[in-house]
C-alpha cells in the first residue's frame, strides 16, 4: 500500500463501503457447477444432502429456542449466530437435495412440508437441553463431529457438496471453539458448575454412537468418493473431546463402541439394526414438537410470504 492509498482509505468516498455495514460480501457458491458428476447415484446423493441438511436444520431450531432464554445477552446473540450459520448450511444442503432429487421440491418444500418420518437427522440434533451445560456439551459434540466430517467432505467428488463443506468448515471451527470454552469454563469452575457440566457430558455420551455409525447410503457414497464415512472420524472426535475434557477437569463422554459384524441394516435376526435409526426417519417425540413450531405457519398458510 502506497502512502497515498493509505490515507485514501481513511476517507469514506465510497458509500457502498461504509465500514459499519461491512464490505466484500461474497457468494461462496459462485461459479460452482450444479450438475451431478457421472457415476453418482442421484437418489443416494439427494438422501445424503438431506441427512446433513436435516442435522443442521433441527440443531438450528433447538438453538433458536435458546433466544430469550440464554443466561446472558451476549451469549444469546452468540447462540443465535451459530443457529443462523447452521440454518444457512441447511438451506444450501436442502436446495442441493431438491435439485439432485429432481422432483421439483425446493428448500422450503423440504423443510416445511415433509412428514417426521422423512427427516433424516441424528438424535443428537433434536434433543432438548435441560440447562446451559447440556447445551454446551451437545454443541461441542455436534460441532466437533460435523467439523471432522466437513473437513473431509471438502474433497467430495460432488463439487456443490465440496463447496458447501468448505464454507461450513470456518463456521464450525468457531462453533466448536465457542462450545469448548464454555465446557472448560464450567467444568473448571465452581463446585456447582463442575457438577452440572459433568452431568451434561455424561448425558451426551450415549448419543455419540449413532453419529459415528454409518448408514448404508453414507457407506455407499463414501466408497464412491462423494460422502464421508462417519466411522472414519471416530478417532478425531474422541481426541478432541478428550482434550477439551482434560482442560475442563472432566472425564470425556463415554462413546459407545462401534457395532460389530459389519453392515447389519437388513439383519432382522433379533439384534438392534446397526446404524441409521435417525438417518432412517425414526425419531422421538421431540421432533413432533419441533416440527409443530417449524412447520406450523407454512402448513396453515400455504405459500405465504412476507
Amino acid at each position, binding site marked *: 500500500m502506497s*502512502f*497515498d492509498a493509505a490515507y485514501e*482509505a481513511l476517507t469514506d468516498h465510497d458509500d457502498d463501503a461504509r*465500514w459499519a455495514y461491512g*464490505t*466484500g460480501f461474497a457468494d461462496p457458491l459462485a461459479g460452482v457447477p450444479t450438475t451431478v458428476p457421472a457415476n453418482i447415484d442421484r437418489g443416494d446423493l439427494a438422501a445424503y444432502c438431506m441427512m446433513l441438511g436435516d442435522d443442521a436444520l433441527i440443531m438450528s431450531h433447538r438453538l433458536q429456542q435458546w433466544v430469550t432464554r440464554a443466561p446472558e445477552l*451476549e451469549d444469546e446473540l*452468540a447462540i443465535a449466530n451459530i443457529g443462523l450459520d447452521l440454518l444457512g448450511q441447511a438451506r444450501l444442503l436442502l436446495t442441493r437435495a431438491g435439485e439432485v432429487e429432481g422432483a421439483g421440491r425446493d428448500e422450503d418444500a423440504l423443510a416445511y412440508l415433509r412428514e417426521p418420518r422423512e427427516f433424516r437427522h441424528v438424535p443428537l440434533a433434536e434433543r432438548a437441553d435441560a440447562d446451559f451445560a447440556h447445551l454446551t456439551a451437545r454443541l461441542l459434540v455436534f460441532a466437533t463431529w460435523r467439523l471432522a466430517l466437513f473437513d473431509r467432505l471438502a474433497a467430495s467428488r460432488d463439487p456443490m457438496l465440496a463447496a458447501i463443506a468448505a464454507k461450513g468448515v470456518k463456521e464450525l471451527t468457531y462453533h466448536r471453539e465457542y462450545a469448548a470454552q464454555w465446557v472448560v469454563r464450567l467444568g473448571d469452575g465452581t463446585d456447582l458448575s463442575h457438577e452440572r457440566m459433568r452431568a451434561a457430558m455424561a448425558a451426551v455420551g450415549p448419543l455419540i454412537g449413532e453419529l459415528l455409525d454409518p448408514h448404508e447410503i453414507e457407506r455407499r457414497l463414501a466408497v464412491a468418493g462423494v460422502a464421508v464415512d462417519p466411522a472414519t472420524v471416530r478417532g478425531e472426535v474422541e481426541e478432541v473431546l478428550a482434550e477439551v475434557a482434560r482442560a475442563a477437569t472432566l472425564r470425556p463422554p463415554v462413546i459407545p463402541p462401534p457395532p460389530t459384524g459389519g453392515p447389519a441394516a437388513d439383519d432382522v435376526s433379533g439384534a438392534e439394526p446397526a446404524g441409521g435409526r435417525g438417518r432412517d426417519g425414526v425419531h422421538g417425540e421431540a421432533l413432533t414438537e419441533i416440527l409443530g413450531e417449524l412447520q406450523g405457519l407454512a402448513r396453515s398458510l400455504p405459500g405465504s410470504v412476507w
Partner: protein
Amino acid sequence: MSDHDGIKHEWPLFEVFVRAKRGLNHVHVGSLRAADHEMALHHARDLYTRRNEGVSIWVVRSDDVVSSGPGDKDAFFAPSGDKAYRHPTYYAIPDSVPHI
C-alpha cells in the same frame, strides 16, 4: 448487583474497538459484559462483526480507561479554539511539497 457466595452476579464491562477492512485504526464500536478478556473477545466477535465489518478486534476493561472529565473541558480544550495557525491548511503549500 448483589454478591452470592462470593460470586459477582454481574460481569465487568469491556470497551470494544474494531479495525475495519479499509481502515488503518481501530475504532470504538461499543461495550459489552464478559467474565474475562478471552470471553470479551468472543462476545465482541459475535456482537460487533456479524456484518462482515472487521479484520481485528481489541477489547479493554472499561475501568482501565482513564478519561478526561466534563469539568476539565475548558482547561483542556478551550485554549486550542483560537489557534487556527495549528492547522496545516493555514499556510500556502509550496508546489515542491506534494503530500500534505
